């Protein structure tokens, strides 16, 4: 090696774009992987957003011919599949990856290379799904995306009804991404149980870490059934097996069961990390410790367990014996109890606090109200007779978008505004943040409040157009107009991120005067996270340091 020490800085300065790309592609650092997850998910968020815009243009008025029925089928399939597997999961895994090791005072995840593997499997899955545009084929055409819906009910996925390879792209993409998710879940659990810094007992872990632990456990028992069912589908399509083939005595209802054994807890895989964001943000911006920490942990764990036993509420209309209906109505309603406990705990944390309505808190409060309404309409749908009337209607679409957009997306925005300074070293612009929030709020309510009504009026989901004169037109038009607002809000957010990354005010280590360990290190943190392994004596280690006269550790 000819390079002497004095030539090193020049060498570093000349580090070209290729070297940077190489560094990121080959990294096993949890922060870089976390950021890659997040950026990857944001790209797909835009993709699924464009798909939604196209569908809303088509549905804005009756008898529209903007999209063909075939294209509409592909769009809603890709929109749903992308949203769950390539936006929701990666973005939450990304935040978890970035934050969990920092919050437990660790150097990295338990298995850094497995972590990189998880990310690249997920990334490959997404690319595979969209490669179908170029390589998938169907009866007569080449270049066809999957069009079987995100839950890909049998027998529509059988080779007789889905010839060509578009369905295989759906199947293989999710199989690959599923392997990535399962290994990610393993990594979260091993990290959280095995790498906590001294003093961080389970009862002192930040709630975000607790909830990511539950999420990791849920991933193990949730994604795997889907993987199993997809292996069966693969055998059906490629080896001529008969799992979901009614002509050989196979049962299509079995696919429904297997899919929803995955599908329902999957909702909690997505929402529990969002509970985690809210549980960190609400206390900091209310200037109070979280109310009812043990109750929050217990509620999260019990949601995890109960959510495993509710899947058949997606099958009320398929027909079940009455005791089956009663069981799944009851278990579904039971989920509302721990969820209610959480909402009350967040409210109680805010109660009497000195609340600062910075942008993260605005989004957190938005989350609280919208998630509550989304949850309540969920309870309505959990009532079997109500569901018989409204399953497969736009009421259902409105319900789960209320939870996904109003709950999950809002809390993800809260998380961005809260942790962006830690990740980049610069604060996001507050004025733009408030515009972002209010415009998104208006757009969200225009779109999804009105979407319930055509559902109640009988509009089925997944139709590519509808006749005039059924009373659905104006509601659908308003729904579509709301999308414009949401699009503008997302553009403001993107602009804010780019602008703030380049010009935003420097954040310092701890811009929010927060209490968890990630704020103890620099922003962005060095590769090794902490120069010394921290030790903690309470749930709020930074409070203890800032208030040595009155540390939390005295009361725990």
């Amino acid at each position, binding site marked *: 090696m000819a390079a002497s020490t004095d030539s090193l800085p020049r060498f570093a300065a000349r580090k070209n774009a290729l070297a940077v790309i190489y560094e990121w592609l080959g990294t096993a650092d949890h922060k870089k992987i976390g950021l890659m997850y997040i950026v990857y998910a944001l790209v797909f968020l835009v993709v699924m957003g464009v798909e939604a815009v196209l569908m809303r243009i088509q549905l804005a008025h009756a008898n529209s011919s903007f999209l063909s029925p075939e294209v509409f089928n592909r769009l809603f399939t890709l929109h749903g599949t992308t949203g769950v597997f390539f936006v929701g999961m990666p973005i939450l895994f990304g935040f978890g990856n970035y934050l969990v090791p920092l919050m437990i005072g660790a150097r990295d995840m338990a298995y850094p290379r497995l972590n990189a593997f998880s990310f690249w499997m997920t990334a490959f899955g997404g690319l595979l799904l969209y490669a179908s545009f170029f390589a998938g084929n169907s009866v007569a055409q080449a270049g066809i995306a999957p069009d079987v819906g995100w839950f890909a009910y049998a027998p529509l996925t059988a080779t007789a009804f889905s010839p060509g390879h578009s369905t295989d792209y759906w199947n293989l993409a999710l199989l690959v991404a599923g392997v990535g998710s399962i290994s990610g879940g393993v990594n979260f659990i091993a990290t959280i*149980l*095995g790498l906590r810094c001294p003093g961080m007992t389970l009862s002192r872990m930040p709630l975000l870490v607790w909830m990511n632990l539950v999420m990791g*456990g849920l991933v*193990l028992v949730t994604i795997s*059934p889907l993987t199993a069912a997809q292996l*069966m589908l693969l*055998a059906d399509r490629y080896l*001529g097996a*008969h799992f979901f083939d009614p002509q*050989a005595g196979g049962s299509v209802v079995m696919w429904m069961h297997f899919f929803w054994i995955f599908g329902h807890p999957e909702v909690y895989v997505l929402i529990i990390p969002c509970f985690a964001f809210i549980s960190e943000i609400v206390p900091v911006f209310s200037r109070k410790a979280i109310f009812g920490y043990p109750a929050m942990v217990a509620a999260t764990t019990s949601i995890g367990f109960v959510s495993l036993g509710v899947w058949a509420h997606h099958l009320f209309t398929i027909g079940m014996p009455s005791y089956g209906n009663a069981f799944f109505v009851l278990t579904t309603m039971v989920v509302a109890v721990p969820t209610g406990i959480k909402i009350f705990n967040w409210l109680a944390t805010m109660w009497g606090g000195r609340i600062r309505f910075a942008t993260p808190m605005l989004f957190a409060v938005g989350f609280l109200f919208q998630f509550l309404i989304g949850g309540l309409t969920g309870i309505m749908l959990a009532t079997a007779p109500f569901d018989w009337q409204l399953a497969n209607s736009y009421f259902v679409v409105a319900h789960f978008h209320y939870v996904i957009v109003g709950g999950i997306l809002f809390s993800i925005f809260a998380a961005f505004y809260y942790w962006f300074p830690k990740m980049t070293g610069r604060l996001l612009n507050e004025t733009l943040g408030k515009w972002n929030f209010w415009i998104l709020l208006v757009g969200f309510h225009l779109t999804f409040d009105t979407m319930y009504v055509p559902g109640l009026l009988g509009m089925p989901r997944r139709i590519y157009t509808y006749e005039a004169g059924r009373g659905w037109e104006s509601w659908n038009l308003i729904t579509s107009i709301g999308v414009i607002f949401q699009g503008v809000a997302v553009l403001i957010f993107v602009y804010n991120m780019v602008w703030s990354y380049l010009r935003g005010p420097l954040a310092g280590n701890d811009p929010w005067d927060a209490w968890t360990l990630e704020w103890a290190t620099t922003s962005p943190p060095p590769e090794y996270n902490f120069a010394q392994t921290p030790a903690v004596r309470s749930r709020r280690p930074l409070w203890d340091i800032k208030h040595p006269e009155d540390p939390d550790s005295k009361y725990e």
Partner: protein
Amino acid sequence: MSATEANIPLGEAAWELPSRGKVGMGSLIVAESAIFTIFVVAYIFYIGKSLSGPTPREVLRVPIVGTICLLSSSFTMHWAIAALRKGRSGAFRAFWFLTFLLGAIFIGGTAIEWHHLIYQENFTIQTNLFGTTYYSLVGLHASHVIVGLIGLAVIMILAVLGKIRPEHTERCEVFSLYWHFVDAVWVVVFTTVYIVGR
């Protein structure tokens, strides 16, 4: 360099955490169990639902030898780890090899069984629901045995090269968890396919 960073106290001495290897393997086993559960449920649900023959009773022969071999391989694996912990590398290698051998006999038995079914009985995954569920469940388990055999072989080669020392006990132990799991799953698969389903 902030005040907060400097103020974080150093770690305390007595701080024990679960081994991340065991936790990781345990988590993987949970996920794998979920996959097997779905396949077993499908198997049980489809018992007797085939629209055409053959039935399990007509074609299945109970793999007694293979089962005995696979189950005893858990014991030899356990003894191998115990020997490694005590630093008796000769005994470790012997038991490890025996484990591999027993696993290989099991998979060989499956191969012979499948060959018989496919070529003598004309019974494949396409034949009926029984064929579909039988080959996928037994095949899923067999693929896990093969993965285990590959792992066993890799460690065996390292052991022959003298690279496995007592300080690697924990890593071998983590691997052994996987092998024990594959054995335990066989008990379930055997019960489902050859006792309940037959």
